[in-house]
């Protein structure tokens, strides 16, 4: 295995063009699967030195660099506002402090673990994901991005460079999960956004093959056929289905409280 540490985005994209090349950001998903020998990249493109971090707030959007760590998301002052509170709330519940110091937004979205938290938040907030290849840049919506377990619209020689969140003034957001006591991954997690015009978005994660956005008027408990809900020895289908309703309602309630300023 070859390890390269490019200093520019172009060099990184060049490195990723090799067959079975993998981008290494914080290493919190890739290194464990490499340790288990599930993934064996030919080239490890270490993008940690690229200028892909940063929290950039403008009047109508928030741009988060792909290398923004969970810890940075958790502690960013700009994210205190109700419209974006789900981001920091979600980040603060991921892994432990060590993981949050290393793990990155872009890395997590690219990995697309079906039980990871952040996909639900980017879906509910209606984020756009900016992808860069040697041939150029494209933007896909979060809904178009997640295709299945560990599967996304990201091409093999593409990198996520940033994630763009539209700002809806006066809205409230929240993320609520019930986590597996060992892994901390969501047995069921819900991100909710409530807007002043009465509109709302709810996305669920941990339920099946990928995080998904609920249709605006759908009851989360009825939204999915059993076959699409993941069940295991620890948390059977029936329990997960029930949890989906609980976390969705709690996330919506909290998002509404934030919007109305009635939260603590």
């Amino acid at each position: 295995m070859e390890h390269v540490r490019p200093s520019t985005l172009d060099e990184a994209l060049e490195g990723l063009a090799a067959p079975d090349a993998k981008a290494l950001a914080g290493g919190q998903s890739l290194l464990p699967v490499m340790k288990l020998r599930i993934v064996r990249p030919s080239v490890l493109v270490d993008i940690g030195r690229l200028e892909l971090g940063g929290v950039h707030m403008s009047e109508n959007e928030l741009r988060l660099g792909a290398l923004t760590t969970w810890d940075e998301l958790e502690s960013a002052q700009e994210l205190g506002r109700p419209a974006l509170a789900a981001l920091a709330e979600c980040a603060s519940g991921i892994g432990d402090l060590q993981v949050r110091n290393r793990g990155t937004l872009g890395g997590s979205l690219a990995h697309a673990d079906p039980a990871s938290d952040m996909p639900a938040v980017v879906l509910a907030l209606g984020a756009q994901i900016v992808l860069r290849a040697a041939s150029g840049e494209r933007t896909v919506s979060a809904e178009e991005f997640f295709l299945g377990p560990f599967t996304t619209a990201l091409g093999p020689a593409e990198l996520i460079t940033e994630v763009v969140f539209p700002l809806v003034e006066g809205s409230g957001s929240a993320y609520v999960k019930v986590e597996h006591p060992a892994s901390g991954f969501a047995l069921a997690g819900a991100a909710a956004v409530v807007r002043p015009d009465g509109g709302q978005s709810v996305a669920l994660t941990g339920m099946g093959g990928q995080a998904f956005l609920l249709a605006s008027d759908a009851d989360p408990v009825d939204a999915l056929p059993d076959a699409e809900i993941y069940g295991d020895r620890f948390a059977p289908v029936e329990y997960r289905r029930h949890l989906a309703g609980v976390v969705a309602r709690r996330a919506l309630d909290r998002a509404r409280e934030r919007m109305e300023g009635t939260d603590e």
Partner: protein
Amino acid sequence: MSESVIGVSRPRVDAPDKVTGATHFAADGHVHGLLHARLVLSTEAHALLQRVERDAALAVPGVVAVLTADDLPLASAGSDRTTEPLARTEVVFAGQPVALVVAESEAAAEDAVEAVVVEYEPLPAVVDVEDAMLPGRALARVLEEDAGGGDLESIHAGVDKGQEDGEEEQLSGNVLDTVHRNAGDATALLETSDVVVSGTFRTPWVYQAYIEPQVATAWLEPNETLVVSTSTQGSFVTQRELARAFGLPLERIRVIAEPLGGAFGGKLALMEPLAAGAALALRRPVRVVLTRAEDFQATNPASAQVTHLKIGARKDGTLTAIAARMIVDRGSNAGWGVEGITSLLVAGPYRWEAHEIRGYGVQTNRFTFGAYRGPGAPTAAFALETLMDELAVELELDPLELRLQNAVVEDDVGVSGNPFPRMGAVEVLERIRTHPLWQSRDSLPDNEGVGLAAGYWPGGNEPAAAVCRVNQDGTMTVVTSAVDMSGVNTGFAAIAAETFGLSPDQVRVVAADTATGPYSGASGGSKVTYTVGKAVLKAAEAAREKLLAAASEELEIAPADLEVVDGVVRAVGAPDHSITVAEISGKALRFGGRYEPIEGHGGSAQTRGAPSVAAHLAHARVDRETGEITLLAHVIAQDVGRALNPALVEGQMRGGAAQGIGWALYEELVHDENGQLLTGSFLDYAIPLAERVPDIDTLIVEVPAPDGPFGAKGIGEAPVIAAAPAIANAVAAAVGIRLRELPMTAPRVWATLEESGA
């Protein structure tokens, strides 16, 4: 006068080295020419080993050998982990070591493990312990006979097995051992009792989850002495096990117990036969280090258990009889199980007029059973203490008063048939009664509850010896072969300092090995402070006698008129007439010196047990919608005999309670129907993380052990026992449901709430 050393909180003597990273653990030692071994683990739960194809592995650069059982110079047949460290012909659990890849580097060994191909002829996997007992069921081991478990059985408690009887129950060959304890007519008494409650309780296999995975290094000295440097709870027991495995005389085996990175019962002669066998076969130093994943699969966790229990009482709250049928899943361990101790402890610290208790040790194709803090005790307490709570509800009595009314006192005869020694069951319950949390139990918010439970550990005994040596500078070195598993060395320092007349910082404690040290048994069974500590006390007394004899000559004052205070010998009532310990020692330890070295040897052979009892209060909140349990507070009151060092005692109480929280809410090793481990990593196997353990209030109760050093008794195991039922009783108080299975995970709590309609 100097202040007493005993009863004063001091930091652990090993803390500075551990905090600064100066401690060398067993995997840290540099050994010239070291080879690294990695295990090939069975992928089948039960199978005949057909063939181990090693050519591809041997072709990996750096690989020295691929060893199977036939390559190890094993002495006897046997089918325990000592005599069969690698499977010979029959694999009996998934994760059992079948081959050892030995290489010049860890990386080469790891690469080569993947290249070893093992062919199996699968056999039916026996995974359901209750089904496995039934006549005619498939056997978990079809080929080999067991050679007995050597010394390992007695380490944790050394209890009797109850009486043998002639009643024949139809059982399969998987039932390796039965225990029957009875007195009086329990069946008749239960039929006539005013209130009877019963239930079937299930507890899973539980992993010790020590921080340091298992590791051992072995090499041959030029004189053919086999040296084993290892992370173990006991050096002498390991020496004996290795002698049994390889047919070597004891004097040819030297076992060095390195500083222990956690064990909790799990580190007793599992890795040493592998490392030693490879070193003997290859005549080069070999180290075996497990990865965490291997440690989950290939070691010896606490056994799963099914307990059918029925207890009765009269209207006034007097307990009448207890009837129990306890099924212990031993996995592949044919040598020993916990059916003996769990069938004793299921009666709890209470008086019964009659009992009828049966225990069964049953083999399955799940792990090898091993010891884990209070083996057989948390499982028994979960059943008994849940039913005690239910009994209190039925009787409309306060659960604490019901327990207090029936708590054993000295000379009450237990189900062992022997009278209880002095034990503070009444005292710990009385201490709990006045605690604010107990007082507040009826005025909590909705969905919160406080639960109570109690449990005791009988405590073990084993003869031990120690040496106290005064150095030229007047400091003392205490030498024992006890492994410091829980801070015992810090206790030894206090015992020696107080007895001899030094301050604790003038005392060093060193661990010797089997070639150099006085005898000590393995650290386990809550016996080290009680037994080795007593030997240290006697050794310090012996050293003090020599000191006073010399000082008497120097000062021309009779020994009886001398005292030793902070390293100074002085005349009682005339402190100006004095000489320092260093001066006397200086006169002894030199060419032409005139006194015997100030050095004492002491031994102990405790015959009476010193049981420790602990009562827990748990304050829990249940989320009715998700089933999640949040612990808001926890209280433990424990009779510790005498707290030599309260800070360390409280540490043991907190650690035990935390592990009990693990039993209650998180920990479960699960196999599928084919015997494949489903929860073999910390991503699947939950432990009580710091953020989930509430503040634990520790209440030290001191009911001195008559034979213990300064009244101290073993305290390590008692605090884990009754934490889980206290939490279960708190859940019942909060939302009115009784879970019959541990751990009480959120999905189980939710499902039970749904069923109950509560």
